[in-house]
Each structure stands twice: as structure tokens, then as C-alpha cells.
């Protein structure tokens, strides 16, 4: 039972439907057969009674005239009436006289003339005790218990005088051959109906179960593979299953959002930690470096003219300067005193990168409805825009296209740079803004790190969408509008 309980709906629903169909077919068949048996029995009763009445009226004269042979011939005649329906054939036909002795019988050897039925034993003995012999008793059907026969007893009456009884005995089992024949035919018809019905109901049941199975299959992907779960083919109907599908889709959507948020937070936290770490390191490095550079400068100004030492110190100075530059790049700092960002800054940047774009045959289009200055530090915004543009031109590749969008409305600056080059693979996304994480051979991989740091410091947001043919970096920064 538990085995069935644990069975998949894929099988359980069709099996239950099969069970219902089979059960119904069986019940209907059994009911029909039971009714048919009743009908057959009723027919036999009706027939036996009418034969009994006919014989009783026909036999009055022969019994009255003691014409035994005539009575026998009449019994024989009624026996031959139904050669095609053997079950309507009486097994025993007896005429009993007023003394309840055999006047004549259809089987004279078994029921000799003048014999008393109770002396013949068997079925007749039980019959005699079961018959009610009252003078006013009309035709009666007697079914002695334990007897293989049942009897229709019709009184022989002339002018109110009881001459005797006509007893017709029918075998209880005589109906069976014909009944079994009927059962066989009904069974064949039921089987035919089932052969047609079962595959149809099987398919129908499978279709009923299919949405549930799809839902269950999709659920199995949660939470490991939300994307597969989200894309699963779920029922779109308005019934309960359809509602369930909708709810499931909503749930998966929210789970996905949550997961995205979590991974974003993870990235932000990591980047923030990196920022703190790099700032700390930069401080620790910058201080000795400052000292070192001052020392070198002092020596160059006041030191001897040892060419070897000068050469070495110059080498040291360049190396240390490079270290300081790199550290400075890591440590992005906003200077408070800066002019506001103006539309002219965009023009400047385009001029700056024109050569680079030209070199790589990249077309740049700008959609900038910016008309007035935006109260945000121009240097930092120029830095952001420049880094993003350079990245985009490199990513767009030969003959590529870069679109720049700028807008400032209701205290929000929106900035987007889009290129149609190769998209960023998913696995790179979480590390996109980390320093030295560049996939390119050229460049130190600090461009996006710097962008990120600046946006962070300006309390803005940065978003990346990358699909084949379209990679967009969007930046949103709030500002306080000048009155």
C-alpha cells in the first residue's frame, strides 16, 4: 500500500482513473447481469405459469373422463413446444389426482401411474410437504429448500371441484447455460468498450497529471538552479494548477532577486574590504615613500657628482614614483574643492578619445540632453567617463559601436556607456570591479576599480548588464540641485 502511496502521480493518477473505469465497468456489468438474471427468471416464471394454466384447463376433460392416454399426449405436446429454449422445458410434468397420486407424468418410468409422490423420494417428497393444499389456493410457485427443482403447481378444477394438480418442475440450473452464454456476450462487449475506453482515459489521466508533474520537476530545481526553474514550462491555465504555477513563478522570481541581492552584497562587501585594505596599505607605503623621495631629492640637490650614484638614485626615484603612482591610483580620493560638471566636459572627453576611437574604427554616438552644469565634481566624473569610454572602445573592437547616454533630472545623474562587442562572461561578473582583475593583456586593471571607488565615494550606484551584442555600464549619482 505504501508502495502505491509513494508512487509518482505520473502513474498514480492514470492508475486511479483506470481503477475507476474498471470499477464502473464491472459494477455496471454486474448490475446488468443481475437484472438480466432476474428477467430470465421472471420470464421462466411467467412462461411456466401460463403453461401450467393452459395445461390445467386442457387436462380437465381427460382427467374427468379418466382418459389417461389423452392426458399423457397433452403433456408430451407441451414438452415439445420449445425445442429452441431448453430452459423453458419442464424437467418434470406431473398430473396429481384428488388423492395426490400420480395420474400421469411426462416421465412415466420415474413417476409411475398411481404412485404417491412422497414415496418417490428426492425432490418430490420435499415438494409435497411444501405445497399448500387448501381448496382455495390458486396457482403457486413452490421452491423447496435443498431441491434442485422449483415447481409451478396449478390446480385442476372443474365446476369448483378440485380434480387434482398439474405440477411442472423446472431445474433451477436450467437457466445457467443460457445465462452463462449471456455473461460471455456481456463480458465480450465490456471488454471491447474497455479496449476503447482504457487508452483514452489513460491519456486523459496523463494529461491531467502533466502540469503537476511539470511543477514538481521545476520545484526540484529550487534553490540550486533558479534559472532552469524560472524557464520551466508551467501550466498557464486559470485553474488551481495554473494559479499554483503563477505563485511558483513569483516565488522563483523573488528567490532570484534575493539571490542576486546577496551576491551583489557579497561583491560590495568584498570591494569595500579591498578598498579599506588598499587604503591602509597605500598610507603605510606612501609615508616611507615620501621620506625616500625627499631623501633622494635632497641628495641630488646637495650630493656629490658621483655619476654612478646619480644614475642609481635616478633609477630609484623613477621606481619609487611608479610605486607612488600605482598606490595613488589604488587610493582614490575626492577632493572637495572642484568645479561642477558641465556639458563642455563631455565635449572635451570626446576630443580626448577621438584618436583612440579612430584608431580602432569605433563609432561613438552620444545622447546627451545635458544643457547646464551638474553640481558634482567634474574631475571625478570625467575620470569615470573616460575610463568607461576607453574600456568600451577596447571591448567594442574593430568596427564596433559605442553609445554614450547622459541625463540629469530631479537630482539624479544618469550615465551609461554601451558597446556592442563581446559580452562579459557570467563567471567574471563578481570580480569585475576588483583591482588587477583585468582580462586584458594591456592595462593594469585598475580602470573599473577607480570608477567603482569614485562612485562609492559619491554615494552612487553602478550597474552592469552584459548580453551578447550589448554590454552596458550604468551609473546613477544623486546630487543636490543648486537653487
Amino acid at each position, binding site marked *: 500500500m505504501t508502495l502505491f502511496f509513494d508512487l509518482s502521480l505520473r502513474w498514480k493518477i492514470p492508475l486511479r482513473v483506470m481503477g475507476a473505469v474498471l470499477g464502473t465497468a464491472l459494477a455496471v456489468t454486474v448490475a446488468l447481469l443481475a437484472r438480466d438474471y432476474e428477467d430470465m427468471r421472471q420470464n421462466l416464471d411467467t412462461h411456466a405459469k401460463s403453461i401450467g394454466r393452459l395445461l390445467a*384447463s*386442457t387436462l*380437465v*376433460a*381427460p382427467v374427468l*373422463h*379418466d*382418459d*389417461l*392416454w*389423452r392426458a*399423457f*399426449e*397433452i403433456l*408430451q*405436446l407441451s414438452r*415439445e413446444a420449445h425445442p429452441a429454449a431448453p430452459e423453458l422445458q419442464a424437467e418434470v410434468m406431473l398430473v396429481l389426482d384428488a388423492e395426490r397420486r400420480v395420474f*400421469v407424468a411426462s416421465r*412415466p*418410468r420415474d413417476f*409411475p*401411474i*398411481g404412485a404417491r409422490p412422497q414415496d418417490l423420494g428426492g425432490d418430490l417428497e420435499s415438494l409435497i410437504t411444501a405445497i399448500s393444499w387448501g381448496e382455495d389456493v390458486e396457482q403457486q410457485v413452490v421452491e423447496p429448500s435443498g431441491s434442485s427443482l422449483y415447481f409451478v403447481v396449478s390446480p385442476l378444477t372443474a365446476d369448483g371441484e378440485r380434480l387434482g394438480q398439474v405440477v411442472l418442475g423446472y431445474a433451477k440450473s436450467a437457466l445457467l447455460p443460457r445465462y452463462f452464454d449471456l455473461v460471455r456476450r456481456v463480458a465480450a462487449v465490456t471488454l471491447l468498450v474497455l479496449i476503447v475506453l482504457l487508452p483514452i482515459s489513460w491519456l486523459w489521466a496523463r494529461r491531467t497529471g502533466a502540469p503537476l508533474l511539470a511543477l514538481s520537476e521545476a520545484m526540484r530545481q529550487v534553490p540550486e538552479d533558479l534559472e532552469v526553474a524560472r524557464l520551466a514550462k508551467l501550466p498557464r491555465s486559470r485553474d488551481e494548477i495554473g494559479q499554483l504555477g503563477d505563485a511558483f513563478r513569483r516565488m522563483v522570481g523573488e528567490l532570484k532577486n534575493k539571490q542576486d541581492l546577496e551576491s551583489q552584497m557579497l561583491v560590495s562587501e568584498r570591494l569595500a574590504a579591498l578598498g579599506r585594505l588598499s587604503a591602509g596599505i597605500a598610507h603605510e607605503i606612501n609615508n616611507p615613500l615620501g621620506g625616500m623621495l625627499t631623501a633622494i631629492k635632497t641628495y641630488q640637490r646637495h650630493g656629490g657628482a658621483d655619476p654612478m650614484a646619480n644614475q642609481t638614485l635616478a633609477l630609484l626615484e623613477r621606481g619609487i614614483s611608479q610605486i607612488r603612482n600605482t598606490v595613488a591610483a589604488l587610493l582614490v580620493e575626492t577632493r572637495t574643492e572642484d568645479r561642477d560638471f558641465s556639458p563642455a566636459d563631455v565635449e572635451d572627453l570626446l576630443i580626448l578619445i577621438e584618436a583612440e576611437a579612430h584608431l580602432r574604427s569605433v563609432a561613438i554616438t552620444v545622447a546627451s540632453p545635458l544643457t547646464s552644469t551638474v553640481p558634482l565634481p567634474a574631475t571625478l566624473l570625467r575620470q569615470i567617463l573616460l575610463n568607461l569610454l576607453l574600456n568600451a572602445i577596447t571591448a567594442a573592437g574593430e568596427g564596433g559601436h559605442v553609445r554614450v547616454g547622459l541625463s540629469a533630472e530631479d537630482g539624479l545623474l544618469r550615465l551609461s556607456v554601451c558597446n556592442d562587442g563581446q559580452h562579459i562572461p557570467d563567471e567574471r561578473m563578481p570580480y569585475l570591479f576588483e583591482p588587477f582583475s583585468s582580462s586584458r593583456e594591456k592595462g593594469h586593471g585598475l580602470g573599473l576599480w577607480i570608477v567603482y571607488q569614485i562612485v562609492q565615494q559619491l554615494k552612487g550606484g553602478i550597474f552592469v548588464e552584459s548580453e551578447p551584442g550589448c554590454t552596458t555600464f550604468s551609473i546613477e549619482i544623486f546630487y543636490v540641485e543648486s537653487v
Partner: protein
Amino acid sequence: MTRERSLNREGIGRRRFLAQAGGVSALSGLPLLTVRAAEAAVLEKGTVRIGLTPVFLDDQMSFTARWREWFQEQLARPVAFVQRGNYREVVDLIRAGKIDFAWLCGYPYVRHQREMRLVAVPLWHGQPFYQSYLITDAHNPGIRALADLRGTVFAYSDPDSNSGYLYPQYALISAGINPATFFSRTFFTWSHRKVVEAVSIGLASGGAVDGYVWETLAEVRPDLAGATRIVEKSPFLGHPPFLARHSIPEDELRRFRSVLLGMKDDLQGRELLGRLRLDGFVEGHPGLYDGIVRMVERVHRP
């Protein structure tokens, strides 16, 4: 019980007929009316009316139809066969002069000899004699003589039959037995053939039957006769004769007799005799029935 059987040329099956007879017998008056109508038809001008009884296998309709046609040809007159359910009715008809001739048993002949005239006697196995057979169930080996049938059910053919009633009565009385109490039960089947049937199916333990009919049946229905066994045979007795009404004109009697006697010399007549299993007819004389006369005297003696 009245049965309508006259002019029954269509050959209605015997059983079906019996069912009808059984059905209408309850309605008194109707059968009598039908019989009278039939008799009126028989009394047409110039028709020779011949009564038949079950002294032979009279229920073979195709045969009786051919025999009637043959008679018509020979007599050059219309012939009507009159069949009845028992001997008594035919005897009454001939005594009343309502039929011209009849094939009757020797028993009614000797009882009403003054009212009938002997026409011809059949030759069976070359003799104008036959026997009464006492038969029993073939599966009942215990019965070896008439005396063994004490207390059983016995089938007679007809109360006016010599072989089927008179002889067994005579045999019992001769043995000092009262026939009225010897059997537990007796009944009439109104036909020799049906005596054989009744005994073969066990309705009766024994029966008295015309030996000529039994032997004929043994040839045409061996299954029926074979289910019975002959226990005793009577002495040879006069074969059931053709009789004429007493008022028959002499020339008609002679004409009919010559037709019967000439039957064996006629091609079709011989064929019909073959079907009857008879060798022919002889003129015969009342002395042939002296044996029956003696039995009647013995049986009817108080």
C-alpha cells in the same frame, strides 16, 4: 370424446390435431356441429363412403390419400374416407347406414353381424387370420406371461377391438382371473400403434395390440416396436374384415368386393397392398370369426 377427422386430406400432423381437439373439447356442442357438417358433405350424390379404423396404420395420410384415389379410379365414383377416433363411432355410422363400407374389427362384426354384411377379408402372410399380441417393455425381463402383469398398468387399444381388448379379457377370464381387479390401472389409447408407444415409454407395463399392426410397425418404425417385447400371442383369429352396411344394394356390394379382390392383380393395387403389408383380399365367410364369437360368449357370460 368426439373427434373430427373426416375429409381430413391436408395431412395435419397428429400431435397438432390432438392439441386442437384437446382445446375444443372443453367447449361442448361445437365438435358435434362440425361433425354433422362433415357428414352432410359425405352424403353427396353418388359418393362411396368408406369408414376406416385403426385396425391398420391409418395415420399415414399420404397412403390413405393414394388409396382413396385408387378406389375412385376403380369404382369410377367419388370416394370419401371417414375416419374416427374410435371404433364405436364408425360402428355406429355403418349401423345407421351413414357410410357404405368400413374396415372394422372382427369383434364389432360378430356383435352386430345382423346389421352388417361381410365384403372381404385381408390375407396376411397368405392367411385371413391374425393374432393378438401381449407386449411389454423390452427392458423388463421379469415379465414372461400375462400373469406376471398383476398389479401393473395395462394399455388396451379400444374397447371394441378384438386383439386390443376382447382377447386379453378372454385370456384373463379363462385363467380364472377377474380382469377388473387384475391390473392396478388400465387405459385406452384408441389405437394399436399408441399401445406400442405407451408400452415403449413405460407408461404401461403391458399392452394388448393387433399382431398385424405390431409386425407392420416393426418394419416401418423398428425403433418403436423394438422397444417392446412380445410376451404372448393369441391363437389365430379372423382378420379385421371390410364390411358393408346392411342396406347396401347388391350390385354395389359386388362391385366393391371385386375391386378389393382384384387389388392384387392391379399394379397400383399391389403397390398399395405392399404398403399395407397384405397379400390381398379374399371373399371370406362369417365362419372365420367363430373364434371371436366364442370369446365374446365367454367374456359376456355372467
